[in-house]
């Protein structure tokens, strides 16, 4: 029975997407019901599976002697928790989209895209081996492309979808090589067969293992948008806001972290020791710092949240890379809590955007607290969870990560503390400018509270943001939860430092932004660099252009000169030369013919008489 349920959980969204795409795109309301029904069913199944025992279900797919690839589902502590997150947030986003996309003409296509995404994400979470995970990895990238480009008539959305897919592909190239290298080292693709092999191989050839792990991390670089492949995530905000909530906050971007932790979980933590783990942790740390800096100067509400997501993902990657005592588990715990409150923040921003008639600039909002109280309160809860205020869920997971960093790599700990100062700063900025004060824009003045079907997901997510960190809840629902070794005490130095960081951040945010109508830091040269995202996009443009031009010059030379002139032209010239030669034989000159005739006869006489 449980096996059937597990396979249903994977395949039901696929059937829903297929049915909608093939039959029902025009009958949008039926399509919507099928899609929402499928995700509700998968959520129920995920809840049912919470109590089941660990198992792996496989189907042989391809066999070639000793090499075999299987399609299988792995149901263990890690995947159960992730499925709750994926299906839970997915269900709430589906419900929110019912109202948000009500007037959209292509909502059938949208819900088909959501179903395909749920299928692909479930596939990544439940994948029992690397090959299957890679297949679903690509599928998730594809569904992200579909959904970011939902309003493809807008140029910026189509460009953003392309950018997301291409940048992901770059990461996936390294990922594939890493998977193959790991297969060569570990001898298998399947996660359950990797257990315990890490110690053996790390002794034998640790450099090769480290390189393999780093290449596999390239996949996480692309999917979880770490520096330098982070450039697609802010552009991905061109998609509808529920999509941003589901894909680019809670689930898809977490897939990179999930994959790294799955590797750690299955192959043993030793695989991350040495330069591989250190590099991963530093990349995570640098990403979180750069993203937090860029977030301080963004004016679009979704962009601020996108950079905030990048920053928190940096935290998670850093935690996984530290490879310390259960720091990976801390990263996963943060992934789980972050999913709830970030989805809350994004859906809240979706409600705000919907109410302000699709206005997204925070400087044109303001005064929303008076007009949309319930939404503002839920947004405030989400903000508090993100800023890691005690006792909300974000606090517990962030403390675990800070403890792990303090224990293993003090420099990264201080980096994380700087980010922990910046996070409250930009979130306070966002909250004050968008919700408090007086209404600055036309849309904000006309805003009113959103319909109830949008509010219920916000309430549900607020509840989860509050309670998800508490141990009894986290024990049941969080993937691979690890009880903190010492319970919370107010005299813990880590807690005091992070509390100080929080207070500094909040107070500077209030001081700088209270009662302002425009950003006071906008003219500052340093802050302009943050606003322009450290010019990463411009640098990539130049890089692509330089390489493209170089390759184009070489190809042009090869095409024009070697193939055109030498080979094709050469053939033409030799054919025409030979033709000219033969043309001289037919001159129409009588005596010429007679001469050849005579010469031929002499030749024959010579050959027959004298050359014997």
């Amino acid at each position: 029975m449980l096996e059937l349920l597990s396979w249903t959980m994977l395949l039901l969204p696929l059937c829903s997407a297929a049915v909608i795409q093939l039959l029902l795109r025009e009958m949008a309301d039926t399509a919507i019901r099928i899609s929402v029904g499928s995700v509700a069913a998968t959520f129920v199944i995920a809840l049912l599976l919470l109590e089941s025992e660990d198992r792996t279900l496989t189907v042989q797919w391809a066999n070639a002697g000793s090499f075999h690839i299987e399609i299988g589902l792995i149901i263990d502590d890690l995947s159960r928790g992730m499925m709750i997150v994926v299906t839970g947030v997915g269900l709430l986003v589906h419900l929110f989209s019912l109202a948000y996309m009500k007037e959209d003409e292509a909502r059938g296509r949208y819900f088909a895209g959501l179903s395909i995404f749920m299928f692909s994400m479930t596939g990544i979470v439940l994948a029992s081996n690397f090959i299957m995970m890679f297949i679903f990895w690509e599928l998730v990238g594809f569904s992200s492309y579909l959904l970011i480009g939902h309003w493809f008539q807008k140029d910026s959305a189509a460009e953003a979808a392309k950018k997301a897919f291409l940048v992901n592909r770059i990461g996936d190239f390294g990922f594939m090589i890493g998977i193959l290298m790991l297969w060569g080292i570990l001898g298998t693709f399947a996660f359950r067969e990797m257990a315990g092999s890490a110690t053996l191989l790390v002794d034998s050839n640790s450099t090769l293992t480290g390189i393999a792990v780093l290449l596999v991390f390239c996949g996480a670089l692309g999917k979880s948008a770490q520096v330098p492949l982070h450039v697609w995530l802010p552009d991905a905000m061109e998609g509808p806001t529920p999509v941003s909530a589901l894909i680019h906050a809670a689930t898809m971007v977490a897939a990179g972290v999930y994959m790294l932790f799955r590797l750690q979980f299955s192959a043993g933590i030793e695989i991350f020791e040495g330069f591989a783990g250190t590099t991963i942790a530093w990349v995570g740390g640098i990403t979180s710092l750069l993203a937090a800096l860029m977030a301080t100067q963004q004016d679009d509400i979704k962009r601020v949240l996108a950079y905030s997501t990048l920053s928190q993902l940096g935290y998670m990657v850093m935690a996984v890379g530290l490879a310390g005592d259960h720091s990976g588990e801390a990263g996963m715990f943060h992934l789980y809590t972050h999913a709830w409150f970030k989805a809350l923040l994004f859906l809240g921003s979706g409600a705000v955007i919907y109410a302000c008639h699709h206005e997204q600039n925070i400087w044109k909002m303001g005064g929303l607290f008076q007009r949309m109280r319930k939404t503002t309160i839920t947004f405030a809860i989400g903000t508090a969870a993100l800023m890691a205020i005690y006792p909300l869920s974000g606090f517990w997971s962030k403390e675990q990560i800070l403890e792990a960093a303090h224990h293993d790599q003090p420099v990264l700990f201080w980096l994380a503390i700087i980010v922990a100062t910046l996070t409250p700063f930009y979130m306070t900025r966002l909250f004050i400018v968008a919700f408090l004060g007086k209404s600055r824009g036309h849309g904000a003045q006309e805003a009113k509270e959103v319909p109830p079907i949008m509010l219920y997901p916000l309430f549900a997510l607020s509840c989860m943001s509050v309670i998800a960190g508490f141990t009894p809840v986290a024990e049941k629902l969080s993937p691979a939860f690890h009880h903190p070794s010492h319970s919370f005490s107010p005299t813990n130095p880590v807690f005091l430092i992070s509390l100080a960081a929080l207070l500094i951040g909040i107070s500077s945010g209030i001081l700088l932004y209270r009662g302002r109508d425009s950003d006071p830091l906008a003219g500052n040269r340093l802050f302009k660099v943050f606003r322009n995202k450290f010019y990463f996009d411009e640098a990539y443009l130049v890089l692509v252009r330089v390489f493209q031009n170089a390759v184009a010059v070489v190809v042009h030379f090869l095409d024009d000169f070697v193939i055109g002139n030498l080979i094709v032209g050469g053939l033409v010239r030799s054919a025409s030369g030979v033709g000219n030669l033969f043309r001289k034989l037919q001159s129409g000159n009588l005596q010429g013919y007679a001469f050849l005739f005579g010469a031929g006869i002499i030749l024959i006489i010579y050959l027959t008489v004298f050359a014997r």
Partner: protein
Amino acid sequence: MASLQEYLFISGLLFAIGLAGVLIRRNIIVIFMCLELMLSAANLTLVAFSRFNTGENGLPDYNGQVLVFFIITVAAAEVAVGLAIIVALYRARQTVDVKDLTSMRG
């Protein structure tokens, strides 16, 4: 008495002169005359071989000389036809210069 080689030498020389004339001269009638010269050279060769070959029972071998008669006859017929063609050619092209008879441009 001249030996066979001397006769053959003369006939070869005659043939060569005729061939050179066919290849070099521009007037069609002169080319024709050189053609006849080549035929005569062949005749001379045949007669020479007939003169210096004795057949069975000591009598000379007259096969060559009989062939010469045939050749002379055929040559005469051929000249008649050839001159008729030349006259027709002159009537069509108003020239007997071989260079002017080329109609191809290459």
